[in-house]
Structures are given as C-alpha cells and as structure tokens.
C-alpha cells in the first residue's frame, strides 16, 4: 500500500535533513579532527512545528568545558546555513560512551596521531577495583609498535590518557574507554 505523506511533513523532513547535514559537519573544539557526529555527542536533529531546529547533544564527561563552545558552533553553523531559529538541548541520558565514536572517527583520530579507544568497560554489575595499570591493546599511532608505556591515565583533556612509544620514543594520546 502506498504511504501518503502530506506536503508539510515532506517539507519538514527535507528541512530536518538539511539541518542535520549542517550539524553533522560541526567539529569538536578540543579534537577538531572529529565531527560531533563522529565523536558520538550529536544525538538528534529535529524540526519543531514552527520551523525551530532542535539539536540534542550529550556531554562526554560531567565537567566537559567544551559544551558551550559546541552549542555556539552548532548555532553559528546552522544560522550561517540560513536556519534562524535554533535551540541546542542537552541530553544526559543515556550517558556518552567512547563506543559511540564512529569508525570514520577512529580513522580520523589515528590519522591525527591519537590512539582510538578500545571497548568501553561495562558498569552494570559491581565495579571491580583495579590496582594495576590499565591493560589495553594500544599501539603507537606513528610507528605502529605495540611496545608502549602508560604515562598517565589523565591527559590534557578529560577524555584522554597519555602514552609513550618505547620504540620510536614519541609520546602520544589515547582516547579513554568510558
């Protein structure tokens, strides 16, 4: 059976797609090699009745200082593309996971010399205390060597750990599993 969509619905869907195409191109202020879509913080783009564009984003960490900048970049990007009525909403739940970084995002990280996260730990049962350095299958994004040392679980931004390659001796950043 043929589905009939009224003209208004079709227009709104076209508008939403156009707005989404703009929103997905906005990059993360701290890791500009990643778009907000590739980072997995862009949740949704909706068009409300009066043509208002509502973009939903989610913070990577509770204290992520980049949220306001992301919001402003989205508003600027969309208004440059002709959308005058834009609202950015925060969605806290479900909490962001590094598993949401797309395949293309992972390649972009590697091309920029950052190591992409492995699978995020599951937190649905009791969380075991880990008193040994976190073991990850990390290899050097520059030379590919698996001989790497963890320097610190905390880096220049909330989402990164610091590593050092013991073959090429270069330090590099690893996006943490969360």
């Amino acid at each position, binding site marked *: 059976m043929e589905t009939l969509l009224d003209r208004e619905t079709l227009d709104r869907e076209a508008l939403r797609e156009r707005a989404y*195409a*703009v929103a*997905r*191109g*906005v*990059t993360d*202020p701290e890791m*500009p090699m990643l*778009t907000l*879509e*590739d980072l997995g913080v862009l949740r949704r783009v909706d068009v409300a009745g009066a043509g208002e564009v*509502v973009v*939903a984003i989610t*913070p990577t*960490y*509770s*204290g*992520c*200082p*980049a*949220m*306001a*900048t992301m*919001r*402003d*970049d989205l508003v*600027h*990007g969309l208004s440059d593309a002709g959308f005058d009525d834009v*609202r*950015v*909403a*925060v*969605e*806290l*739940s*479900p*909490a*962001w996971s590094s598993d949401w970084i797309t395949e293309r995002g992972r*390649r972009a990280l590697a091309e920029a010399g950052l190591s992409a996260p492995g699978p995020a*730990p599951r*937190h649905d049962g*009791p*969380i075991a*205390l*880990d*008193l*040994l*350095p*976190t073991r990850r299958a990390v290899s050097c994004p520059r030379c590919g060597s698996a001989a790497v040392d963890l*320097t*610190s*679980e*905390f*880096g*220049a931004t*909330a989402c990164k750990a*610091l590593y050092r390659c013991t073959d090429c001796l270069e330090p590099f950043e690893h996006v*943490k599993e*969360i």
Partner: protein
Amino acid sequence: MTDATDPAHAPSHPAPDPNDAHGSIFDGLLGSDSSQWAFGTDFEDPLAGVDTTIPDGVDPGDLATYCLMLADDALIASHRLSEWCSRAPDLEEDIALANVSLDLLGQARLLLARAAAADPAAVPTLPEGSPVPPEDALAFFREAGEFRNVRMTEVANGDFAHTIARLLVLSCARLAVFQRLTTSRDTVLAAVAAKGVKELAYHRDYAGRWFLTLARGTEESRRRLVEALDALWPLYAELFATHPVERSVAEAGVGVDPAAVADEVAVVLEQVFAMSGVERPDRAPLAGVQGRTGRDGLHTEALSLLLAEMQVVARAHPSGRW
C-alpha cells in the same frame, strides 16, 4: 580519504580576519565567542532541555537538600583538589588531580542546578538584574552553615599522601552511592549518577594505585600515608551516617541511604589496605556539636577559610559579567 563535497569535512572554523574593521588581532584568541572563559558572557543552564519534573511522593525541599549534599561533597572536594594545580609532585599528577577535580566540578554543577530547579527557594537572593545563574548563586553566595558536605571533604590538603588517602576513601564511598543512584526515580539524579559512575571508577583506581605505591614505596612515603589515613579516620564514620533528609529521599526511591553502602565500601578499602600492608585505623569518630555534623551545616574552621577564597571574587561583584 576525505571527500571535499562531504559536509562533515567542510571547515567549520574559518580563521578570523585580523584586518576586519570590527575586530582586533585578539579576536583570534577567543575564537567565535567567549563563552569558554570563566563563567562565559552568556550564562548557560546546564540542564537545558532536561526534564526536571519532580517525581511523585518526594518532598521538593528534601530533594533539593539532598542534591545540595551530593553537590557540596563534589564542589568542596573539587576545590581542595584544584589547590594542587602547579603544586603536585610532577606534571602528570598535577594534570591528573586537575582532571579529577574537573569531573567533580561538573557533577557539582549539574547537582546544584538540580537543587535549584527542585526548590527555587533554596537559591540565595541576589541584587535585581544579577546575571549569576542559580547554580553559581548556590556555590558562591551561601554561608558555611548552609553547606551540606561531609567534613572529610573540607579539611586542609596536607601532603600528597593525605590527598591520595582522602581521594581513595571519598571516591569509594561516592562510587558506591552513585551506583545505587542510577536507578533513582528522579531522572536527573539517575542520569548524573550514570555518568558519574564512569568517572568515579577512574578516580578510585587512580587513588588506589597511588595508595599502594606510597605504602610499598619508601619508609618515608609509607610513614606519611599511614599518618594521613590515621588523621582522616575520625571523619570516616560520618560518610555513612544517615541524615533524616537522606532517609526521606531513600524511602521515596529517589536517594540512597549512605548506611546501605558502608559494608561494601569497607570491603573495597580492605582490599587496598591488605595489598598495601596497611592496617585499617582504629580511631573514634569526631563528634558533632549536639549531634550535628557536616550534613546539618556544622563544619570545621577549614570550610570557612576555603569558602573565603573560593567565593571572594563572585561576592565582590554580585552583578558582574565575566
């Protein structure tokens, strides 16, 4: 491998033009806006778009007070950790402690905003037209007697061993509470907790590893660690003492009774102590005044000194735009 026609890879940050008649060469430092500086020129609602409806069967005043308790624990612990900036034993620890501090500050901000949304009467009144948002009014314009944090968060930092011992105890307790809080009937608390659990697991592992390292390091590092743990222990029992507000929100399925996590926290700490070869201290709890402790707004002198420093600039300019 990027496609030039793919909008996802079009440049979205054009370089500022230094010759622009309306700009200056310094505009480039700010990017397209200044909201990343200090409070920002545009005050944000951290819960923008989040449903803050109060669940049935819970008193809004109790919910707000409970949020203040969880928020103040994080805010004061965060401030103490931030005091290590540029003073830590090495650059990596400086960065690590600042990261932990930032996570806690983020949790505090969301929880303060939740408190303000649950009971607007809890927010201090500021001069007409003040641009200070509710969560900042709660952080910077309450007196020590209105803070609801446990006293362990407020005592002075001491040395690095003291900070590690405190971070271990506090993150074990907060992680256990937050894990249970993920099923709160309050959707905001549940969401803040689900996010916080991931962060606190990192904090606890970090503190636990350093605890073990210091305990099994040199004679001096071990001596300092044992002394620090001993000095903190009189404030341990307060973490698990149930305040009437905590009982009320726990019974409503919104909050967590801290007494319910006491055994679990003791077991986790025992694991660290056993591996570290450190005895659990045997010290009597620090009494309150007529039974009142941190959760009632009864604090040590250390909190007043901390707040004096933390609040002085905001209080000097209650109508300031930053």
